[in-house]
């Protein structure tokens, strides 16, 4: 039965309202301009929070549809307005990066056109890719058909093939859309996937607003969404790109917290990283290697901040805990990868021949031919951080990317799956989080160098202009 796309949009509007409540509660939208700049962040937070809630409630037999979303939106708004009236605007609002608004608006218009074009194709794309329907599509439809994850599909050995140990955020959100539409429409649901891209774009802008020149953020968002694997893979209904979006936003929030030390950023990081760990199993790996270098650094430099960071990491673990309890209670296979195998010298030695081909294959997947200029641009961003006096930020980005890459190689190293088959079916998409995360960090990494260059250029123009004018236009 075909679903009405407008009802899917209605569900997303309610998710946006949930996020508006959060943004208000955090004191991030104290005037109309701030609200307009942060409405995208509100949408991303709303999607992440309702996704976490949907996936967790599904474990105890509670289905979320439009009425429940409506109640949640009202509750969130109430809390947001109450908290807003009691708190002063965050100190961070004093920050003001110099932005070329017109240029940023032009780039945003191109991005909007790209998304609108994609929407026309997404709305009529059937569930064609194998894992897209066999794993994620089956789970979403089962959550819609049965209302929860307590049935045999999520626990019986008959359904081992749908990777029961993969967490439920993506199918739970899709099931909510199906409930809103009153039909499990495998074509219209692609619009939800595209809306993840919209939420990512808006969230990155909202996260970096006032901290990074708007045109730089807008340019980076366009570069990410225009990289062909992003919208291409997103349309497959695989969870890799949604995972990449969630982790990237969490890592950017952590990076900004590192330099600005605003508490709201830590909360936002925990929400997005929490959504990431509930999207795919490797989300926990990407989140852990984001927290780890920061903890090491802050433990040595600022114990108080290290404790706050530990609390945020604890919140991410708490998000994952119900799912881990569920898989443990139902004795679900945890898949083919067990990180504890990394502590078995015998296995590591026996599998040593897998390291070089895995590293080679992964390196081949992040090249210009696949992801356009995202990786080179990230490298320039890292360099700009060091040049622009943001070495700590640069080191954080390098640490996260190096640790993430090493963990990806480790996954192939310790796995017992046939290597060539495993690489062929996963290497092109498992790098998505690494590439998108690195690119999303770039505006923050390069902000100070960018602002410095603009200021230097202005100064140069100002000093040259009076001398040139009389000669060019003689009286």
């Amino acid at each position, binding site marked *: 039965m075909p679903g009405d796309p407008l009802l899917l949009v209605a569900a997303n509007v309610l998710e946006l309202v949930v996020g508006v409540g959060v943004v208000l509660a955090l004191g991030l939208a104290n005037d109309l301009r701030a609200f307009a700049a942060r409405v995208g962040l509100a949408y991303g937070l709303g999607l992440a929070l309702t996704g976490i809630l949907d996936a967790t409630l599904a474990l105890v037999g509670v289905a979320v549809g439009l009425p429940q979303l409506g109640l949640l939106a009202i509750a969130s708004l109430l809390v947001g307005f109450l908290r807003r009236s009691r708190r002063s605007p965050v100190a961070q609002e004093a920050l003001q990066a110099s932005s070329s608004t017109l240029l940023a608006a032009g780039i945003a218009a191109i991005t909007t056109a790209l998304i609108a074009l994609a929407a026309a194709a997404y709305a009529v794309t059937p569930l064609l890719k194998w894992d897209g329907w*066999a794993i994620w599509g089956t789970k979403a*439809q*089962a959550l819609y058909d*049965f209302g929860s994850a307590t049935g*045999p*599909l999520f626990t019986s*050995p*008959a*359904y081992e093939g749908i990777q029961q140990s993969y967490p439920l955020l993506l199918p739970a959100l899709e099931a909510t859309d199906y409930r809103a539409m009153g039909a499990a429409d495998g074509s219209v649901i692609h619009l939800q996937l595209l809306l993840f891209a919209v939420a990512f774009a808006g969230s990155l802008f909202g996260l970096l607003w006032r901290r990074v020149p708007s045109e730089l953020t807008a340019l980076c968002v366009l570069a990410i969404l225009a990289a062909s694997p992003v919208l291409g893979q997103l349309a497959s209904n695989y969870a890799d790109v949604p995972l990449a979006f969630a982790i990237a936003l969490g890592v950017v929030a952590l990076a900004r917290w590192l330099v600005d030390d605003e508490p709201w950023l830590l909360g936002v990081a925990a929400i997005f990283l929490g959504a990431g760990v509930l999207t795919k199993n490797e989300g926990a790996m990407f989140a852990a290697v984001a927290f780890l270098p920061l903890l090491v650094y802050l433990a040595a430099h600022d114990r108080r901040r290290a404790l706050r960071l530990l609390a945020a990491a604890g919140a991410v673990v708490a998000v994952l805990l119900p799912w881990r309890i569920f898989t443990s209670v139902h004795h679900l296979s945890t898949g083919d990868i067990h990180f504890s195998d990394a502590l078995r010298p015998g296995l590591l030695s026996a599998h040593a021949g897998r390291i070089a081909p895995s590293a080679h294959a992964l390196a081949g997947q992040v090249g210009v031919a696949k992801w356009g200029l995202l990786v080179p641009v990230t490298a320039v961003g890292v360099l700009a951080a060091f040049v622009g006096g943001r070495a700590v930020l640069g080191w954080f980005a390098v640490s996260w990317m190096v640790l993430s890459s090493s963990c990806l190689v480790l996954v192939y190293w310790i796995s017992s799956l046939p290597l060539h*088959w495993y690489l062929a079916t996963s290497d092109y998409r498992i790098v998505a989080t690494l590439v998108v995360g690195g690119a999303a960090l770039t505006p923050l990494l390069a902000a100070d160098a960018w602002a410095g260059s603009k200021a230097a250029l202005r100064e140069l123009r100002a000093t040259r202009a009076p001398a040139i004018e009389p000669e060019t236009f003689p009286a």
Partner: protein
Amino acid sequence: MRYSPTVIAFYGAHLRPGDRFYVQAPDNGKLGNVRASLMLTTGFALLPHVMVSRPGQADVVLSFEESPRTLGLRYTRVDSLVDGISAARVAHAG
């Protein structure tokens, strides 16, 4: 894949509301074998019918390149699409 949408439609047509089904197909234990692949396909396409892991738990046995007679169950009816592709309704005691 050796099976077509026609096969899946045939299986679906032989399920009544609430029926649980068992998939019987060649399984060589290797990655992506016919049975594993057919289980994934029917698991998705035949929802909300639920697949079971043992033939004795099923209301209907869906067979592909195998005969339901080899499972040692009693059936009230066996329908075949072509030789080797059948849907067999299990005769439950009582």
